[in-house]
């Protein structure tokens, strides 16, 4: 059905898009002299470290950013889209790395935003909902009521809506910028099936991801960027993951799936019967100093909600959190109390819940621990600057200076700034929600190293991730959530990918086949 990586060499596909000498300069150059070509019906994987320029290059193709150098040709004709609309008219579409939905509008309206079906300006509600349902079915979301406001969906589902949206209408070239960063394997499978179908229709696809195993599944060719320069483009089958990594970072990186179990210290935290509505149901577990406890689960299984409850960000319906060896419930009714009790929280949505976007790296990094950079309420600028410089180097945040506003950083570097904030705070318990979302493999290793270091220093870490490989490589134990319940906690050695997945589905299949969407209501 699909050409697939295997038979690519047989009949070279026609070139759809060609870029020559593409460059982009803000204050400093972020792209320089990039040449590339993209063929109809192929998937070109675009990889590189955070800040390598992947999103920038994609945005140039999609008409969101104008290049300062170079030219593009689309199917032989010069192509210089001045806006996204112009690019879309020519069938070039892009799913952005950051969500861009309108929370107050319904799923259907978001899907067809900008092209709502209407008669004389009046929206045709039936046609709208039908078209939307059709579109949702394409990526396996037929269970979601298109009339729901998007704000009722979790981040993962919202990402799916974004993807579904890009598939609306005429499409010759589709760019997916880290579409799977918040997705779990079930949704990813749907997405890949869709990609196959598009390929068969001759659509060219640019696929950006930091998950190299995915690339091996979908990509026909791989293009690597480093520091805004084109390093190499090759058929996927000619490369191993290690080859790709070496090209990306210019060195070898070891992830190490088989680590030793870390020595477990005293109890750091106990959760008893925590519940909120139907999203989190009767969750109990213990977390120990010196360990990393992972939390796996499908999108919408309630992992984020669980962390928010522990952190006091949302009100719990029932249950309690005990700190340390204490037998009495801790009074944590707000994140402020949580921080005071030594609990830090790296949130999943860095844009709306983590960062002060227009402010500098310096301001963002010290936010949770201003006490350390001040004396008697007065900020000590030198101390602050030194500490932030140290953190920036430690995490290799790619930026002009620590005074650069974080909204000018690439997604992965923004994530590192959030992480830096909690390194700076030095908490006893750290809640990590998708801590490597959008982070490249090199930087990921940096973050893992920090996690390791913290665990070694006796901190307790609770880490939610949608990337099972990440959990399996980094955690000492993995808890699996399904439909709001913590169904099982695996010890290192007990788990396999298969077992984890089965657990993740268990509560849904037990209740009904119709999957997790019932919690949306």
């Amino acid at each position: 059905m699909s050409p697939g990586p295997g038979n690519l060499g047989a009949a070279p596909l026609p070139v759809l898009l060609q870029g020559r000498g593409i460059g982009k300069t803000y204050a400093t150059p972020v792209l320089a002299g990039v040449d590339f070509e993209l063929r109809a019906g192929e998937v070109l994987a675009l990889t590189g470290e955070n800040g390598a320029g992947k999103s920038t290059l994609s945005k140039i193709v999609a008409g969101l950013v104008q290049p300062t150098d170079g030219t593009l040709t689309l199917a032989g004709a010069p192509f210089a889209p001045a806006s996204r609309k112009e690019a879309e008219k020519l069938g070039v579409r892009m799913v952005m790395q950051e969500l861009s939905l309108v929370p107050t509008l319904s799923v259907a309206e978001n899907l067809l935003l900008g092209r709502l079906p209407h008669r004389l300006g009046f929206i045709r509600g039936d046609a709208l909902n039908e078209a939307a349902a059709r579109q949702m079915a394409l990526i396996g979301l037929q269970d979601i009521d298109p009339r729901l406001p998007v704000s009722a969906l979790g981040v993962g589902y919202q990402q799916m809506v974004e993807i579904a949206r890009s598939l609306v209408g005429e499409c010759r070239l589709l760019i997916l910028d880290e579409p799977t960063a918040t997705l779990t394997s079930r949704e990813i499978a749907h997405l890949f099936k869709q990609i196959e179908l598009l390929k068969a229709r001759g659509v060219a696809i640019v696929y950006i991801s930091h998950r190299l195993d995915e690339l091996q599944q979908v990509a026909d060719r791989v293009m690597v960027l480093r520091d805004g320069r084109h390093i190499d483009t090759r058929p996927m089958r000619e490369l191993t993951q290690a080859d790709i990594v070496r090209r990306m970072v210019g060195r070898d990186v070891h992830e190490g799936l088989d680590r030793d179990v870390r020595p477990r210290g005293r109890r750091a935290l106990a959760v008893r019967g925590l519940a909120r509505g139907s999203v989190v149901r009767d969750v109990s577990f213990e977390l120990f100093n010196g360990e990393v406890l992972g939390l796996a689960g499908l999108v919408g299984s309630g992992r984020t909600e669980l962390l928010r409850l522990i952190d006091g960000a949302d009100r719990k319906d029932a249950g309690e959190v005990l700190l340390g060896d204490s037998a009495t419930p801790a009074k944590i009714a707000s994140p402020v109390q949580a921080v005071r009790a030594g609990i830090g929280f790296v949130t999943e949505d860095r844009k709306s819940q983590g960062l002060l976007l227009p402010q500098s790296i310096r301001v963002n990094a010290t936010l949770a621990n201003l006490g350390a950079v001040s004396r008697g309420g007065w900020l000590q600028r030198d101390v602050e600057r030194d500490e932030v410089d140290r953190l920036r180097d430690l995490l290799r945040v790619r930026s002009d200076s620590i005074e650069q506003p974080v909204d000018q950083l690439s997604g992965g570097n923004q994530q590192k700034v959030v992480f830096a904030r909690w390194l700076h705070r030095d908490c006893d318990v750290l809640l990590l929600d998708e801590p490597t979302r959008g982070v490249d493999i090199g930087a990921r290793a940096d973050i893992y190293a920090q996690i390791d270091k913290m665990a070694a220093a006796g901190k307790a870490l609770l880490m939610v991730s949608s990337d099972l490989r990440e959990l399996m490589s980094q955690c000492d134990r993995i808890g699996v959530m399904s439909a709001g319940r913590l169904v099982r906690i695996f010890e290192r050695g007990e788990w396999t990918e298969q077992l984890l997945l089965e657990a993740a589905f268990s509560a849904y299949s037990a209740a009904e086949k119709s999957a997790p969407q019932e919690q949306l209501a």
Partner: protein
Amino acid sequence: MTSSKPLTTRAALTSAVGTVAGLLVALALMVGFFSWQSEYFFTADTFITIANDIPAVAVTAVGMTFVLIIAGIDLSVGSTMALAAAVAGIAMLQWHWSLLPATFLAMGVGVVVGAINGAISVAWRLPSFIVTLGMLEMARGAAYLATDSRTQYIGGKIDWLGKPIVLGLSPQFFIAIVIVVVAQIVLTRTVFGRSLIGIGTNEEAMRLAGVDPRPLKVIVFALAGLLAGLGGVFLSSRLEAADPNAGTGAELVVIASVVIGGTSLMGGRGSVASTFFGVLVISVLEAGLAQIGASEPTKRIITGFVIIIAVVLDTLRERRKKRGS
């Protein structure tokens, strides 16, 4: 846990009815109180008077609702009312125009003022608060210039709009009702309306979706100007004069009415229908306090209090609804 579909529809329904229901309760409480205080309050007369009183504020509030929905604000509506009425008055007095063309002229003046507001905000991406604050001063100055700082008496030529025709109600009342209904339909049923909600919620997302927010924003401000211009004519027709001071401070009353009607100052959420009830709340309060002869300090204190309470109640209801769903 049942299937989600019926739930959704029910939730949507509850929302619209909810706000209005809340406001109706507030209205009922006020009517009860005033009826207890004054034997003449609970009469058809009172309500007819109120009904004939509200059109100017109501139509202006409709425009303001749209502006707030796109997360803007328009502080210049009071001045615009005066300027538009002044121009219409001059057209009738000096150029001997009749009512209808003069009204269109006033609306035209409103459109120009509003479009300037919108264009400046959009062109330099300025907050509309400050642009319309500047316009508040400029349009008022222009109204003074146009009327030579004197109230222009127009007389019977303009009073048709405010004179009772059916059941004691005036044409302007019916016009206002039609405008409210049409605006509500436009807001909820058209692509235009949806786009405005989108812009108010996440302008960047709209832009990325290929909807250029700029012309839409200019249109919304122009529309607010148009409706303020019409409101100015309504006001004039009750005064039978063009008063250069007309509508002084009206912007705050209008905004208060719209917000009491549950429209968010943050953009993205609002309803014209409930704006109408917000206007009613303020009008009934004003009428009742006058009718019982409350002292000026009392009036001020109670008005401020009611504004806050009304918004608190709306928020609590909104929040309860959210938690419930």
